[in-house]
């Protein structure tokens, strides 16, 4: 890699039209290459591969075969779809607001792609280790909300508008539990940087966070699924109710952009879950190999990472294949009345546990060590696990009693009607 970059830098330095006085540094070149790779490599690939994968998996779940004609296992089907999208005529409805109508899908795609800036693909391969890493993820997600609203509003279609408003209500409802579970992670990791989070998931530091914080993971993952509008949270495009939701009027490449947005978002969610809860590229021998032969270690890390990502992707598709769609009131209730309080309580208990295990003050701050600091990372992991399970248990009790009460009300109402 190194010589090529130097060569590129020299080449650029000698180009007479270069407007800047100094030639771009090697870092800039790497960044540009990496950025182009994400935007034009990962994003379209994600759509092509994932649509094919989804069709195959769903087909298997539904006892079908799925696409099998074009190419081996039908994988050319996806390519054919992509070509069709590119060449299909693109109609804009007469009453649409043209500019926002065209901007909306773009914004959705951009917001999904931007997440990859902080996801490390392999040891040493990360766009940018922002110190606000996971907070950044929440932030760029906001553009997606705006894009959705723009797309739905500008279409001048009732279904689209209704779909957009449903979508926004859903997105904002699930953003809170997601953000709070990310805060929980930040409390445990003591940082929002994704690299630090991965570092803290070394076995010596306590291992993967999915072990320590299953509830946090669950909240995050469910909220993330809702954010990506995946089934069973896909009622903003509920085909049978509002046709296709906010993107009903889109066709051709703009539709492709919406789809890219959705699938890239899905990939990003899987990637984030893998990074935050499954240790990212962590796996046996990665670090040793990386220290010896960086390229091989990086490749192995990439393989592990991809495996974890695919696992999550599979889980999402599995959900889609098996679960029926929520009703909108159930969806919002689930978000606000269950996930939000659960994540808040989980945050508080986790923070408490973390304080118990806090090591003595570092870097000039005189802090007494927590009473259980001696147990180290593994102790923290097990204590967090216990507290998570406890929260889950209490939550299940609360849900049970609430359910019983509401069932009682229903029975009473029924009795009242009959009597």
């Amino acid at each position, binding site marked *: 890699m190194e010589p090529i970059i130097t060569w590129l830098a020299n080449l650029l330095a000698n180009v007479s039209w270069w407007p800047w006085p100094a030639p771009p540094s090697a870092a800039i070149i790497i960044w540009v290459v990496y950025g182009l790779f994400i935007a034009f490599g990962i994003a379209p690939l994600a759509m092509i591969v994932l649509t094919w994968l989804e069709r195959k998996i769903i087909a298997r779940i539904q006892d079908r075969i799925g696409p099998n004609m074009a190419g081996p296992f039908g994988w050319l089907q996806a390519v054919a779809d992509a070509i069709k999208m590119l060449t*299909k005529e693109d109609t804009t409805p007469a009453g649409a607001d043209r500019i926002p109508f065209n901007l909306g899908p773009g914004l959705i795609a*951009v917001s999904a792609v931007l997440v990859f800036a902080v996801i490390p693909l392999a040891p040493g391969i990360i*766009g940018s280790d922002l110190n606000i890493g996971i907070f950044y993820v929440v932030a760029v997600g906001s553009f997606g909300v705006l894009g959705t609203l723009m797309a739905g509003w500008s279409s001048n279609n009732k279904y689209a508008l209704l779909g957009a408003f449903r979508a926004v209500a859903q997105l904002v409802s699930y953003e809170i539990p997601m953000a709070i579970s990310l805060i929980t992670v930040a409390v445990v990791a003591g940082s929002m940087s994704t690299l630090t989070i991965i570092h803290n998931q070394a076995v010596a530091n306590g291992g993967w966070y999915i072990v320590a914080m299953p509830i946090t993971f669950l909240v995050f993952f469910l909220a993330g699924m809702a954010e990506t509008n995946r089934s069973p949270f896909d009622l903003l495009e509920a085909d049978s109710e509002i046709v296709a939701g906010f993107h009903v009027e889109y066709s051709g490449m703009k539709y492709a952009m919406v789809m890219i947005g959705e699938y890239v978002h899905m990939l990003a969610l899987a990637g984030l879950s893998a990074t935050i809860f499954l240790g990212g590229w962590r796996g046996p021998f990665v670090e040793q190999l990386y220290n010896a032969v960086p390229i091989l270690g990086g490749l192995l890390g990439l393989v592990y990472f991809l495996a974890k990502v695919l696992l999550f992707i599979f889980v999402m598709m599995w959900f889609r294949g098996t679960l029926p769609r929520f009703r909108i009131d159930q969806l919002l209730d689930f978000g606000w009345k269950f996930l939000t309080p659960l994540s808040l309580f989980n945050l508080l208990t986790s923070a408490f546990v973390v304080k118990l295990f806090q090591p003595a003050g570092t870097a000039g701050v005189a802090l007494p060590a927590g009473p259980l600091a001696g147990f180290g990372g593994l102790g923290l992991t097990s204590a967090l696990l216990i507290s998570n399970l406890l929260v889950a248990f209490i939550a299940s009790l609360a849900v049970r009693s609430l359910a019983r009460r509401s069932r009682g009300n229903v029975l009473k109402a029924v009795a009242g009607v009959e009597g």
Partner: protein
Amino acid sequence: MQNEFIFVGILTICAILLPVGGMGMSWMLRPHKPNKLKQTTYECGLETVGETWAQFKVSYYIYALIFVVFDVEAVFLFPWAVAYNKLPLYALAEVLIFVLILLFALVYAWRKGALEWI
């Protein structure tokens, strides 16, 4: 400028290029034959009745409202989370108060029926 954000800028430009390039390419490749019928609003083949801007529920607004409040809460909690390990025990107590007050807000909204989809 913070160096680590340069890549975010580069990626943003690349990401914007994606829809721009995609749409531009498709604009060059695809046919352009608009007609009145194609441009009508799609409602599964039925004629559109009335305005697009149908009666709209306040509930949507209320959800957005509650979201705003909790969003701001989350904003305050992120720096706390990062600084948490470097602060004494009172960090927990103070945030406990903060969160409990907002939990009270949630309970209020719940009790008031603002979280009911009716």
